[in-house]
């Protein structure tokens, strides 16, 4: 084991000096090329125009015959986004849907996380597994499973008809309610887990102190527990809100034709209309819109990781 010292000083010195870059560089370079740089290409192509060629858009940079680089960005796609109201409507609709779904997730998820955090240590381990397990099973299959419950001839309607509660099937599929239900069903674990992580670490003596000082349980919750659990509330809400805004599968499978979420518009622009530059412009505009929530999430995560 002591051979590295004397026999190969040059290699040893090289590793000592640059070795850390052998560790840092591969993930840094890979993520830069395959995650970060793609946004640059999307930005570039958002200034191109759709064309009947492969790939289906015009060049933004061209070299003229006299070897001058010619830069001809077209703002047509962004103008189009502002004039065609389907984009404004779907942006607004996506934000509203994501906002209310996140709120419902929070209202259901908070008591769940609170109950988990107050259970015995052994139960906590099992409950963690129970909450995480759905996250591991296919997202697509879970949405499909939910469809089996809420379909016109699904389990819920069959049961209610059999019980005589209703005399004709409830129309849930292809409604806005189905989209909410789908998002809450799919993203609830994302809300519960960060909340549980925060609540579990909470110092119970603070609550006891509050009640010793005569606080009612409800007041102690509002004054002590809730403010202390804010990091979990923010983390959970961002984990639900951000992907929910861009959701495609849920509105496509459960929603009706008027549930125009931006993910669906983007998908159609790409696969049905084959207008890549407009799709790129929609993505860039969408990203700008999400910059706030993503920055909030990053700030929280990075702060937590640097601890």
């Amino acid at each position: 084991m002591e051979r590295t010292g004397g026999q190969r000083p040059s290699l040893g010195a090289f590793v000592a000096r640059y070795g850390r870059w052998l560790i840092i560089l591969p993930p840094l370079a890979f993520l830069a090329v395959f995650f970060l740089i793609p946004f640059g290409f999307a930005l570039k192509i958002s200034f191109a125009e759709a064309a009947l060629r492969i790939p289906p858009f015009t060049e933004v940079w061209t070299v003229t015959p006299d070897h001058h680089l010619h830069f001809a960005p077209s703002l047509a796609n962004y103008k189009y986004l502002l004039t065609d109201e389907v984009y404004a409507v779907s942006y607004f609709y996506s934000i509203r849907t994501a906002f209310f779904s996140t709120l419902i997730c929070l209202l259901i998820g908070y008591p769940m996380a609170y109950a988990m955090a107050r259970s015995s240590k052994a139960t906590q381990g099992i409950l963690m597994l129970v909450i995480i397990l759905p996250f591991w099973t296919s997202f697509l299959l879970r949405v499909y499973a939910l469809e089996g419950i809420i379909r016109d001839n699904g389990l819920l309607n069959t049961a209610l008809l059999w019980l005589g509660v209703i005399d004709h099937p409830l129309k849930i599929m292809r409604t806005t309610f189905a989209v909410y239900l789908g998002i809450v069903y799919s993203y609830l674990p994302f809300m519960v887990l960060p909340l549980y992580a925060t609540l579990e670490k909470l110092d119970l003596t603070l609550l006891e102190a509050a009640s010793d000082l005569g606080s009612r349980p409800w007041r102690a919750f509002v004054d002590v527990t809730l403010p202390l659990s804010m990091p979990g509330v923010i983390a959970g809400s961002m984990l639900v809100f951000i992907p929910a805004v861009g959701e495609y599968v849920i509105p496509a499978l459960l929603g009706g034709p008027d549930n125009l979420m931006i993910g669906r518009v983007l998908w159609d622009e790409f696969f049905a209309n084959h207008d890549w530059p407009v799709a790129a412009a929609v993505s860039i505009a969408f990203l700008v819109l999400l910059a706030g929530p993503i920055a909030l999430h990053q700030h929280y995560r990075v702060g937590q990781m640097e601890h």
Partner: protein
Amino acid sequence: MGTRPSTFLISVLCLGIAFLYLPMAALVGYSFNASALASVWGGFSTQWYVALLHNRQVLSAAGLSLEIAVLASTGALVLGTLAATALVRFRKFRGRLLLTGMVNAPLVMPEIITGITQLLLFVSMLQLIGWPARGVTTVVLAHIAFCTAYVTVTVQSRLQSADRSLEEAAMDLGATPFRAFMDVTLPIIAPALVSSWLLSFTLSLDDLVISSFVSGPRSSTLPMVIYSKVKLGVSPDINALATLIIAIVGSCVLVAGYLVRRGERQRLADAQLAAG
């Protein structure tokens, strides 16, 4: 927290868990239904599983998805472990903030944006350097990118809690940093490596949106085939397929959970032994 939760809290928790599990339980039940109609119970039958075995399209898509998932999760495991090591062990380096941002952003980036931007990259790269053609390669590369994020976060938290002094002791005894890492640190973070590989595997196996954008004409993955079938309406053999996937993934998770717990107990026992 010690005090018992109230009845209200317990009932919300139970209802929430029921809400999460009931649809999947119903799906498993439907998969054994002899009737193709969801609302009628036609008796117990395994006919949909038999039908599945003869569905070439599903079988070849499943094979392709498994291949992609193994490649992507292995690649992500290597890159993610390196990234986690860099972030935990090197306090300051050029690009630290960039790396931190790039391992966290994919966790929340809407898949549809990641998919579109990556497709635009692959198309531009193909035009500029003639590589990569859309197909398995592009899907694997795209999956590695988002799985690396999950691996990094999982391994990072494990590395942070690992006792640095053990590794330092090994180096004091003459081990090179590499040997010390391999012999001392690697066994400690092994459970995190196993669980993050399995997590990447299931995430890759499950991905629909990103794959739809970056895959080529003859590389339809399993979720893409399932989606197109589901979109057309109910097909009972999808219930059977879903049941199989849930069973496989469920047992993977239980095994991973068991391994992590056993590793934890072993570590505690070792620590007590060392202290005693």
